[in-house]
């Protein structure tokens, strides 16, 4: 019996009997108390006591040695997004901790629950510019939901218990616990109590029924109601309630990219994607709807374009758990400051059963226009070179829309959002608010670890792939069965598109001379192949999906393909361009 099981079994059996452990052991025992079984991390001097303790916990805590801390945090994000539980990652002090920051910022803006544990120098050295001392609490303050520096072992259980509670309650987010080396080494009496309340923290507003009634009244009178939904639906596990609401009220609904897969793509009332590269109808109709019902979304500028010309004609109902998001970008006529699931349950009973047939039809008409002008040629191109859209279509068809799709940032991401036909709920993982290149490969790794029975497909650009390419090492070592698809256009495609459209085609430093991706993958021990011809695409995708274990498929696509439609940055959603 390992120390871990010995200690935890004691704890479970006798909560009164306490045990003397080191701070480092206390960290791991606390994680077990929170039901953690997976950690992504990277060791170093200031976190060595925790790693030393981890050696004895290997049967209860599975640790993945990533190849860079950024890989660790994105993996934790992917894990959190697919499981709905906080992702956990470890890093050492100084550079180890600062390498987490991109992922922490990404998780903060995309509301992903994370518990990051960093080692810190001995407490007597704090503030002395000691070796690998960085003020991690200070540096991460603007991008964490909460953080805490532990300098005494006794504080560990409470700090970790609070961390999990804060990370996962209300609007989720990343928290960071920085633990000095002396606190890890010191002995203390371990006891654990989960936290469910903090006096100064108000994560979940009670549902205000009069606000819900006011919302229902607006909806019941509306002639052209329109739903915009975001990740709030997924975060509050309200997919079912949402579907029931949409269907009863008969209202067309469009998604932000973080809300994608909250309702199946082919649902008759799912009218598509909002925002800069979203669908034609949803953007145009935003400025025609009389009542807009925004649920669990925050009116990001990539969704709204110019706010001065955004939905001015509409009454806005904003259902949102985070009070600070209400009236931040768009003034709400009726604000329902609540959890989406609770709000929808109440709202659905109050709305009248309706079908806005003619109104819904206008979205279909827009889709028709968009299909003829844009979509058909993307899905079934007749160009010599392969196109991104068709690659996504083939992956979508062959996985029957059942895969977890993880994407990076750029053109391939927009194409994936637009053309993957999600049939499974909560299956889209992408970096939305931060748009973090390098997110995909490690996040896919974390997602696969979190959902080992699901097919996880990572779609990445040749640029973003090279930002966290080192995680092929982690994927190989632990045989994490992700399918990696590189849509290689030999360009930083999305930037090139902007250069083409807005900078007179001055391709300033966006062309890439790339290495042999297949060779690299194989050198890492990961099976790989490359496809350049349309004739081979189906077979190569099939081979990849059927392969037992990780696999990399490089799809060589058109170099200068563009994503359309497009609302140019800062323009009105009504000015969406089809070409």
């Amino acid at each position, binding site marked *: 019996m390992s120390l871990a099981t010995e200690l935890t079994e004691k704890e479970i059996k006798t909560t009164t009997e306490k045990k003397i452990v080191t701070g480092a052991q206390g960290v791991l025992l606390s994680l077990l108390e929170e039901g953690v079984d997976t950690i992504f991390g990277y060791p170093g001097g200031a976190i060595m006591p925790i790693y030393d303790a981890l050696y004895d916990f290997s049967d209860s805590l599975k640790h993945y040695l990533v190849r860079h801390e950024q890989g660790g945090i994105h993996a934790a994000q992917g894990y959190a997004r697919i499981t709905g539980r906080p992702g956990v990652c470890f890093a050492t002090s100084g550079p180890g901790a600062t390498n987490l920051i991109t992922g922490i910022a990404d998780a903060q803006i995309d509301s992903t629950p994370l518990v990051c544990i960093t080692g810190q120098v001995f407490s007597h050295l704090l503030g002395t510019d000691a070796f690998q001392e960085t003020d991690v609490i200070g540096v991460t303050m603007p991008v964490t939901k909460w*953080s805490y520096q532990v300098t005494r072992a006794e504080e560990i259980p409470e700090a970790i218990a609070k961390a999990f509670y804060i990370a996962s309650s209300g609007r989720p987010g990343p928290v960071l616990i920085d633990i000095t080396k002396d606190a890890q080494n010191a002995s203390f009496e371990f006891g654990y109590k989960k936290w469910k309340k903090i006096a*100064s923290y108000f994560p*979940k507003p009670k549902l205000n029924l009069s606000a819900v009634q006011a919302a229902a009244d607006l909806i019941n009178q509306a002639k052209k109601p329109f739903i915009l939904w975001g990740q709030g639906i997924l975060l509050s596990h309200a997919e079912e309630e949402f579907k029931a609401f949409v269907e009863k009220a008969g209202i067309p609904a469009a998604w932000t990219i973080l809300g994608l897969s909250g309702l199946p793509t082919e649902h008759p009332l799912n009218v598509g994607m909002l925002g800069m590269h979203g669908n034609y109808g949803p953007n145009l109709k935003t400025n025609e709807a009389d009542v807009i019902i925004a649920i669990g979304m925050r009116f990001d500028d990539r969704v709204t374009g110019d706010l001065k010309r955004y939905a001015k004609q509409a009454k806005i109902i904003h259902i949102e758990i*985070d009070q*600070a998001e209400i009236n931040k970008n768009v003034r709400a006529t009726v604000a329902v400051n609540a959890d989406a699931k609770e709000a929808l349950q109440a709202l659905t009973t109050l709305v009248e059963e309706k079908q806005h047939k003619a109104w819904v039809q206008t979205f279909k008409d827009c889709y028709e226009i968009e299909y003829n002008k844009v979509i058909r040629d993307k899905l079934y191109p007749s160009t010599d070179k392969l196109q991104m859209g068709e690659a996504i279509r083939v992956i979508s068809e062959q996985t029957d829309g059942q895969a977890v799709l993880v994407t990076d940032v750029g053109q391939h991401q927009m194409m994936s959002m637009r053309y993957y036909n999600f049939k499974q709920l909560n299956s889209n993982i992408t970096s939305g608010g931060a748009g973090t290149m390098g997110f995909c490969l490690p996040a896919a790794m974390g997602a696969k670890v979190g959902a080992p029975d699901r097919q996880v497909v990572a779609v990445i650009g040749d640029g973003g792939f090279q930002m966290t390419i080192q995680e092929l090492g982690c994927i190989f070592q632990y045989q994490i069965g992700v399918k990696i698809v590189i849509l290689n256009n030999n360009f930083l495609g999305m930037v090139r598109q902007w250069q083409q459209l807005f900078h007179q085609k001055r391709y300033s430093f966006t062309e890439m001379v790339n290495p042999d991706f297949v060779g690299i993958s194989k050198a890492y021990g990961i099976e790989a192949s490359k496809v350049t011809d349309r004739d081979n695409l189906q077979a190569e995708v099939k081979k990849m999906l059927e392969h037992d274990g990780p696999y990399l498929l490089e799809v060589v696509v058109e170099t200068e393909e563009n994503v359309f439609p497009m609302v140019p940055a800062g323009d009105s959603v009504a000015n969406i361009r089809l070409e």
Partner: protein
Amino acid sequence: MDYNEFASESEEKNYTIFAFTENKVGLLNRIIIIFTRRHINIESITVSESEVRGVYRYTIIIRSKLETVEKLVKQIAKQVDVLRASFYPEEATVFQELAMYKIPMSSIVNASEVEKIVRDSHARILTVDPEYIIIEKTGHQEETQELFEKLAPFGILQFVRSGRVAITKHMKDLRTYLREQAEAYS
């Protein structure tokens, strides 16, 4: 929370923001970031223990539009260690600042002249030293400034003015607010 108690106004004016918080290391930094991130200048900030033991009161003065202060206050209220945040226009509060003036004894030829100024300004003499005197005045900024102008001919060696402290005029107390707030959340 009472953000919308005041009519929507679009001109810039002085607002007093109150944040009631736990006494936590680093919280000041967290709160300041909310302003700096939006490029908003804080006119003054003071922190002290409030009427409720263990609860700290931040008094922050900014000049901004109503819409801006509303958003800022929500961001402050959202911080885990903040119990309550609210804001008020100047007229809803009673406020004071403290100023101190150090005058060299050598420039005081006629002591009664200084005494008269001090008396007329409702200030007081805090310290008398063979080399200098220190005068103290509480009041609004215009008042402490007025005294500054009056003392200027004597040569002011040092001058300092504190941040504003303020108390709201309404009668609802912090405990009631906190209780109501706790009831609004599950």
